């Protein structure tokens, strides 16, 4: 129960607040404005808004009508007062209330992932261990939280730590090739698997310009991506699609992949 509550609060507070807005936000005074100034944006001016709201000449529904006496805009529609809903009144939890009171702005898609189930004991296979470690990394998002989540993840500490590296320049990644380190692999920007089978590209494939040292998980992920069918390539894998493409085109895709996976600045 306590965990559920903490998890709910974590999700609420981690939500990108800047992308949520009350529909009636204009009624609230911006906190950095202490007095009414002439430069104030009228949308942030609550007193102005209130003044604009009251109009003694606003028509009312005529007497004898079931809604007689209520404000109307003259078209027959009844103008309802603003309703303030509290969590207790509505019978909703905080999250549901947020859904009622806030509108979501374009571009904000919830990323509140369902918490994964983590086994208490170390999974028996390496593949299963990787799954747990990577699910923890994706869910907790913060290195120390991941490392502290499960004792047996210690075994994958180098890979986990490396996967949280910030993006680096191409020069930094190339220079690091000469310094092997646990949790990292040497990666070919233009894949070896796409080299010309006649051997004409072998020297370029293994040249320092084509080699970068990147976190092992990112390396494996890129390799897996090259083997995965893609809608973009009509169901072909990038490796199949790129096989007959020019060196420059393959290198461009290789660099884009490094950027998108968060390795290259």
């Amino acid at each position, binding site marked *: 129960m306590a965990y559920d509550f903490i998890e709910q609060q974590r999700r609420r507070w981690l939500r990108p607040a800047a992308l949520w807005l009350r529909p009636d936000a204009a009624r609230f005074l911006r906190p950095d404005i202490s007095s009414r100034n002439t430069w104030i944006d009228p949308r942030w001016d609550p007193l102005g808004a209130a003044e604009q709201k009251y109009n003694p000449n606003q028509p009312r529904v005529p007497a004898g009508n079931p809604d007689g006496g209520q404000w109307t805009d003259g078209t027959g529609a009844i103008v309802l007062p603003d309703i303030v809903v509290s969590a207790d009144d509505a019978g909703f939890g905080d999250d549901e209330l947020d859904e009622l009171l806030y509108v979501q702005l374009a571009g904000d898609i919830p990323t*509140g*992932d369902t918490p994964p189930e983590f086994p208490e004991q170390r999974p028996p296979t390496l593949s299963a261990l990787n799954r747990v470690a990577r699910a923890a990394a*994706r869910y907790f998002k913060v290195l120390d939280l991941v490392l502290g989540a499960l004792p047996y993840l210690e075994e994958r500490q180098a890979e986990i730590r490396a996967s949280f590296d910030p993006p680096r320049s191409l020069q930094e990644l190339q220079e690091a090739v000469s310094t092997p380190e646990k949790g990292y692999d040497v990666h070919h920007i233009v894949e070896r698997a796409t080299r010309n089978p006649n051997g004409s590209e072998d020297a370029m494939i293994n040249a320092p310009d084509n080699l970068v040292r990147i976190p092992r998980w990112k390396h494996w992920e890129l390799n897996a991506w090259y083997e*995965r069918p893609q*809608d973009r390539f009509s169901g072909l894998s990038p490796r199949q699609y790129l096989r007959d493409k020019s060196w420059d085109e393959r290198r461009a895709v290789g660099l*884009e992949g490094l950027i998108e*996976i968060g390795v290259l600045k």
Partner: protein
Amino acid sequence: MKKTKKDLSSLTEQALLDLFVKYAIEQDDALLGFEVARSNRMYWAIKDVTNELKSRPGDRRRALIPFYRHGNPQVRLKAAEATLALEPVAARAVLESMRSIHGPQRLDAGMAIRGLDDGSYKPT
């Protein structure tokens, strides 16, 4: 076990949606474990379900749109990819939201967006 195309045509829409989610979650599991063969099998299984929905009157891939808010990121990603032709703005926003996550969906989403931007990816 993957359903054949004949099996899929006899399923209700809800059953197809259930299969979509099941396959996408299995694909996520495979991706996390770097299991390429299992992940690729699920790609085609999801494709078959999506094509079946597309073939139904009114293009019922639209029924995948609620999965933009699913709790599993691979379900969100696959729902967005499957509906890019129908809801290009909203589906792209889902992909954009995955561009910075710490997981396997990041690369797929980012590369798909690059393909959309350079015109090499034309969703149908």
